[in-house]
C-alpha cells in the first residue's frame, strides 16, 4: 500500500499531449502516454523535514519500554515536497492553482472553456486527478492544452509527490498557469498541500447551499470560491445569499465569483482573477 496517499493500488501518471485522441490515450502504454508509479522517497530530503526535531530517551522504572519523543508533524514529508514544488514554481514564474470540489461541480467544463478562450493569451496546462480513466484528460487535450492525468486508484486525493512528478512531465513555461484539478471530493484534498499558490473551491448551485457548513475544512482555506452552473439558478432551490454568508464566515478573505461555463457569466471576472494572480515577471 502506498505510504503517503493510502492507495492500495498504484497511482499512475499519463502525459497527454495536445491533440492526442481518446483512442490513443485508451491504448495507454502503446501511445504517447507514459505511466510510472509515484515514489515517495525523495532525496535529498529538505532541511525542514528534520528541523525542530529531537529525541529523548526516558526510562520508566515500571516498564521496559522506553519513550522516544518525536514531536513531528504527520504530514511533514508531504509538506516538505509541497514546499519544494512551491519554490520551483515560484522560480519559474508559474502560477499553480489547486481546483477542488465535489464530483460533478463543473471543474473540467470550466477548464475546457477557459483553455479555449485564453488560447494565445495565457498558456494553461492541467494536471488531472481522478481515481480512474483518462476521460477528463481527453476533454482538456481536445482544447489544445497540455495535460497530465494522474489516476490515484483507490486514493481519494492528490498529494505533493504526485504533483511533483506531474510538474516534471508537464514542464510548464515561465509566465504560465498550471491548474491542478484535484480528485472530486470535498473532504480529503483539504488536508494535502500540493505546493499551489492558491486554492479554489467550486460549489455548483445544483449541490445546494449547505456545502460550506457541511464541509468547513474545505472552504476555510479557499482563496477563491466559484459558484458554478448559475444558468441553472431559475430551476433549483439555491439560497445564494445564505451560501455567500456561510462562505464569508468560514473564509472572510475569500473572493467569490458566480460563473456559468455554459452562458459565459462571470468568465471575464475569472480571467481577471487569473491574470492578477500571476507572479510578477522576475
Amino acid at each position, binding site marked *: *500500500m*502506498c*505510504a*503517503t*496517499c*493510502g492507495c492500495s493500488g498504484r497511482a499512475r501518471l499519463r502525459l497527454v499531449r495536445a491533440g492526442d485522441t481518446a483512442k490513443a490515450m485508451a491504448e495507454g502504454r502503446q501511445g504517447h502516454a507514459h505511466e510510472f508509479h509515484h515514489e*515517495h522517497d525523495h532525496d535529498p530530503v529538505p532541511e525542514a523535514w528534520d528541523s525542530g526535531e529531537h*529525541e529523548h530517551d526516558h526510562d520508566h522504572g515500571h516498564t*521496559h*519500554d*522506553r*519513550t*522516544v*519523543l*518525536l*514531536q*513531528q*508533524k*504527520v*504530514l*511533514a*514529508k*508531504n509538506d516538505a515536497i509541497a514546499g519544494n514544488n512551491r519554490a520551483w514554481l515560484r522560480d519559474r514564474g508559474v502560477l499553480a492553482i489547486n481546483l477542488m470540489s465535489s464530483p460533478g461541480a463543473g471543474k473540467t467544463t470550466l477548464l475546457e472553456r477557459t483553455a479555449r478562450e485564453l488560447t494565445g493569451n495565457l498558456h494553461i496546462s492541467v494536471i488531472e486527478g481522478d481515481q480512474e480513466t483518462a476521460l477528463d484528460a481527453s476533454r482538456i487535450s481536445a482544447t489544445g492544452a497540455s495535460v497530465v492525468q494522474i489516476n490515484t486508484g483507490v*486514493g*481519494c*486525493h492528490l*498529494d505533493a509527490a504526485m504533483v511533483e512528478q506531474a510538474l516534471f512531465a508537464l514542464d510548464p513555461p515561465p509566465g504560465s498557469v498550471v491548474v491542478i484539478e484535484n480528485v472530486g471530493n470535498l*473532504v*480529503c484534498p*483539504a*488536508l*494535502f498541500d500540493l505546493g499551489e499558490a492558491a486554492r479554489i473551491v467550486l460549489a455548483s448551485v445544483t449541490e445546494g447551499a449547505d456545502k460550506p*457548513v457541511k464541509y*468547513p*475544512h474545505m472552504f*476555510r482555506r479557499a482563496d477563491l470560491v466559484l459558484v458554478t452552473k448559475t444558468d441553472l439558478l431559475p430551476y433549483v432551490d439555491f439560497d445564494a445569499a445564505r451560501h455567500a454568508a456561510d462562505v*464569508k*464566515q*468560514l473564509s*472572510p478573505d475569500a473572493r467569490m465569483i458566480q460563473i456559468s461555463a455554459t452562458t459565459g457569466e462571470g468568465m471575464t471576472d475569472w480571467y481577471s482573477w487569473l491574470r492578477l494572480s500571476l507572479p510578477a515577471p522576475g
Partner: protein
Amino acid sequence: MHELAIIESVVETVTDRLPDARISCVHLEIGTLSGVVADALRFCFELATEGTGLEGASLEITEQPGRCRCRTCGQDFSPDGPILLCPCGSADAEILAGQELKIASVKVA
C-alpha cells in the same frame, strides 16, 4: 477516508526514524480543527500497521481543543463547532491552536 493516508504517514515516519524498533505504543496529538477524526484513525490503525514494526502497538490520541483570536474584537475564544464564531458575532478569526496533526512520541519495546 484520508485518515488511512494519515495513519500510513505515521507508520512511514516512525519506521524512517526508528527503522529496527519494535513499537509498543504510538501517541498522536490531533487538533479538533485539523479535519481528522480520531475514531477513524483508530479504525485504520490495526490494518495499516500489519506487517510493520508497529504491529500490535496501541494507539493513544490526545485531542487538542481549538483556540482562536477574533480579528474584530481582539478577544481569544474557544470555537463551538467548526465555524469559528466569536461571541461578539464576528467570524473573522485567526486559529491559534487546534490544527495539530502530530506524532508526539512512541514507546519502544
